[in-house]
């Protein structure tokens, strides 16, 4: 029962955004002024629900320690590559963990990496958005594996490449809702155009990381997953 509730809460975190968007487009909201505040509350709510889902999940010490390690590796990678504009292995590590350990672990890895690396790089209003975006990257990799178990190396390279842009667009949502008015698709395109090269660097970096090290990483994580299950059964 608790496990079911945790799953429901976790997926509700994702559902809250499309539901809210649908309500907005249908024009049944009375929010006319501060979209920046509203967007921040919604993203915090979504991340909060997912953490609550994880909280209620009956996760063992091994899973907790594993997620912490993967998150720390992601954060260390981000700081190690801080000199290059937007090229870092964090997205790749979140995607690889989600692909092997499933959507919940992928989300926790991505969001932990974002929060922990910001302890050292500086917290900002972008933190919840980064937590959400990296978490979503990890979760979506888990979902992709469920639906396309034989996606192959090149499929994942394309997936990682696309996530470079998705990540940028999710973060653009923050600056767009907070600082731009009126909120229409023209202004959103203008904001995305301003970040185009950053996103492209990110996408190219992700693709290169997966192309060069992806299969090796996945093999390593799979081996470890097997080892974890083995230890449980003892």
């Amino acid at each position: 029962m608790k496990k079911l509730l945790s799953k429901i809460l976790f997926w509700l975190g994702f559902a809250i955004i499309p539901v809210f968007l649908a309500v907005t487009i249908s024009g049944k909201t009375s929010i006319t002024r501060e979209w920046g505040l509203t967007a921040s509350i919604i993203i915090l709510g979504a991340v909060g629900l997912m953490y609550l889902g994880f909280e209620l999940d009956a996760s063992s010490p091994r899973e907790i320690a594993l997620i912490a390690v993967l998150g720390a590796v992601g954060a260390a990678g981000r700081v190690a590559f801080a000199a290059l504009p937007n090229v870092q292995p964090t997205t790749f590590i979140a995607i690889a963990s989600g692909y092997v350990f499933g959507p919940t672990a992928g989300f926790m890895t991505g969001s932990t990496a974002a929060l922990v690396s910001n302890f050292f790089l500086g917290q900002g209003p972008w933190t919840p958005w980064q937590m959400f975006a990296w978490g979503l990257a990890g979760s979506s990799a888990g979902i992709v594996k469920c639906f396309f178990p034989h996606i192959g190396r090149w499929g994942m390279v394309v997936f990682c490449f696309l996530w470079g842009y998705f990540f940028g667009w999710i973060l653009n949502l923050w600056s767009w809702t907070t600082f731009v008015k009126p909120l229409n698709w023209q202004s959103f395109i203008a904001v995305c155009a301003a970040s185009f090269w950053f996103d492209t660097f990110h996408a190219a970096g992700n693709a290169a990381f997966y192309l060069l090290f992806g299969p090796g990483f996945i093999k390593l994580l799979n081996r470890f997953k097997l080892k974890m299950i083995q230890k449980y059964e003892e």
Partner: protein
Amino acid sequence: MLDRFFYREKGLFLQSLHPLSALTYIAVLLGLVLMFNHPLYLLGLLAVTVTAIKAVDGIDAWKSFLKVSMGAAFVIIIVNAITVRAGETIIWHGPYIPVFGRLNVSMEAVCYGADMGLRLLDIMSIFCLYNFTIHPDRVLDLLSRFSFKSALVLSLAARMFPAMVSRLDSIREVQTARGVDFNTGTLKEKMGKYALLIKILLLTSLEDSMETAEAMYARAFGSGRRSHYVRDAWRPRDSICLAASLLALGAAIYGWAKGLGTFSFYPRLDCLIDGLTELVLLFAVIFLLSFPLILSWGWHNCPFIKSKI
């Protein structure tokens, strides 16, 4: 290089606040900045924030934040100026561009962009203040009361992070001793060498995570209700700061519901001061938010106040 942006314990008043009251104060500042778009309100909040940053001795780091914000504010002004069509006072008639239509720049759009640039500076400053006021461990400590698993993941990861960075260095040294030269080779070869570093790091850390898990088992993790101890004392200063922050938030929400503190830019710029109540609310909010700063001044300069709070 980055360490001047981190928290450093200096024994200052704002750093001695209970994390709950310090977090509430910063959250209220942030909430108000997102609620109001009136330039005077944003300026007032900026003044409070910068004074607070000065009180935690972070002005040097804030100057770097200022530079970054200026750059980003410039982008915001440009994006607003070229995409907004709602302003009436056209100051520049531009050419026709496909997708966007005719490129007319209105004064209202430029002003709105500048106002949003100010908001961005406010937000950056508030986070600068946050980084200097509260130690991350104390926030995690507070968080662990409500959600111990997530807080545990975060504190484990935060604990492992510096260890990983130093381990990365030692793995690099071992590889160098074995004859791997990280500075030569094509880009692909170099990336391969660095990937090996991360792979070894991941492998050893994953092995270690098993040991961490066993240590948690050995300490009966998850076997029942979690015990915890209180490390942070709640003092009169915390009650005062918390009450002042909440009162400021209450006043702000009341005024906001009445339409105060909002400035309409389109189709024409509003009057900057729209009646006395707007100013009264501004002063009330700023006064309440200055309470911790006044206490900080008293704590450092007046032994009597220091003994009472």
